[in-house]
């Protein structure tokens, strides 16, 4: 081989391999497979929340301080469970256990798809259990940062995102949203909001359009894996959202669809979300009770 080329090859082969490579590869292999099997929220993931709740339990002073922070305050409002041991005298006023009003769901059927009503009530219970479980698990996981982000909190609904960030070498974030109807103690799911499954296609097409537009406008600073984007890429393009795609309802009452890192775009894009214009789904919405 040519001497110059030989030198270049030696340079290339001498590129040092960082210690993190093993870790990054193994994690990618593992994470990819769990993703494939479907989303599973792991109990250990909300470690920071454990610490956070632990902190409230241990230190009334901390609890007091936290209750004054508006965002944290509203989390505390929702995350009420029996073992919640706080200095009651100092804290009582800030904790409001969501009122449980059984049976009186008469008008609910008009706002939600009946088929899913029961499931929503069960999911709500599950949500409460999971939070309780997180508290019981105890202990933290090094290198994992997790917590909550309240997207919307008004009289009617609470949209809350639980996130986990792993930071070693490079980071990946997993987000799981829960949207709760506070009046009726129901955890809203996407299919529940719509008359039938046609929303999957309508929303997906809109997202594809938004993706292409964003790529074009940003001069390909933003990249999504979508067909006809102007960038040739033969790998799995985004086609349809999952029936139970991650979503929340924002402060303006708009439906927001969220994708995890790597789900529809390269890693540098992180978690991506799309606000869906209400006009395009108004025909298939059961009601405008939640989405406006």
């Amino acid at each position, binding site marked *: 081989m040519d001497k110059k080329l030989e030198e270049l090859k030696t340079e290339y082969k001498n590129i040092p391999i960082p210690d993190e490579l093993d870790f990054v590869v193994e994690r990618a292999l593992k994470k990819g497979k769990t993703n494939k099997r479907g989303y599973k929220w792991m109990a250990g993931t909300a470690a920071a929340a454990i610490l956070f709740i632990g902190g409230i339990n241990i230190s009334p002073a901390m609890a007091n301080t936290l209750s004054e922070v508006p965002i944290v305050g509203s989390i505390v409002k929702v995350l009420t469970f029996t073992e919640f041991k706080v200095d009651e005298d100092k804290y009582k006023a800030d904790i409001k256990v969501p009122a449980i009003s059984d049976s009186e769901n008469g008008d609910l059927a008009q706002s939600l798809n009946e088929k899913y009503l029961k499931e929503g009530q069960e999911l709500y219970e599950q949500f409460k259990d999971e939070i309780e479980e997180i508290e019981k698990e105890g202990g933290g996981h090094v290198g994992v940062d997790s917590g909550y982000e309240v997207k919307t909190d008004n009289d009617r609904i609470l949209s809350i995102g639980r996130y986990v960030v792993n930071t070693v070498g490079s980071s990946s974030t997993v987000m799981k949203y829960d949207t709760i109807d506070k009046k009726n103690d129901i955890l809203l799911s996407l299919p529940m909001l719509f008359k039938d499954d046609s929303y999957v296609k309508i929303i997906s097409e809109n997202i594809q359009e938004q993706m292409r537009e964003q790529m074009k406008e940003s001069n390909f600073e933003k990249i999504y894996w979508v067909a006809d984007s102007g960038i040739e*890429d033969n790998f799995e393009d985004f086609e349809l959202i999952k029936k139970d795609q991650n979503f929340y309802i924002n402060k303006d009452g708009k439906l927001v669809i969220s994708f995890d890192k790597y789900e529809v775009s390269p890693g540098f894009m992180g978690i991506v979300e799309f606000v869906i214009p209400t006009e395009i789904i108004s025909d298939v919405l059961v009601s405008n009770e939640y989405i406006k």
Partner: protein
Amino acid sequence: MGKRRRFNDDDLFTEFIRDNKENCYRLAYSYVRNSEDALDIVQDAIHKAILSYDSLQDLNMLKSWFFRIVVNTSLDFLRKHKRVSIMDAETMEFISSGKEDHYENIDLERALDQLAPEYKSIIVLRFFEDLKIEEVADVLNENVNTIKTRLYRALKLLRIEMKDEMIKGAN
């Protein structure tokens, strides 16, 4: 049918990735010249690969297929960070001026880096990763003749002389 194959060949895929992780890292690094970004690309590429593994028709193509993902992911990255990398190159040049004797091959290396990605990819894959010319064509999704033409051009740009057999990789 794709689904069933997945189960049996899952380990094959994992094994392949483990065996080739260092090659993939170097390949990514050769584009981005930065360890953190190269790691991110490797990770991204594995995710992409797992997502589209079912659509891989021929397992003999596994290597070309995965290398293609790494190359495309790297190019995506460069596209996104275009301005940053140009800045970096300028800074690098500024900093390294006057220190050139520390880097024996700096001219050659710089020349390689200055090649357009489609030329650089070919040099790296053919000569550093020792792929056959047909495999390079598979990875870059071009026909063999296009690759050959570009390879001759690339070598000419680098002022490297080479015999035909070397280019084709007759082995």
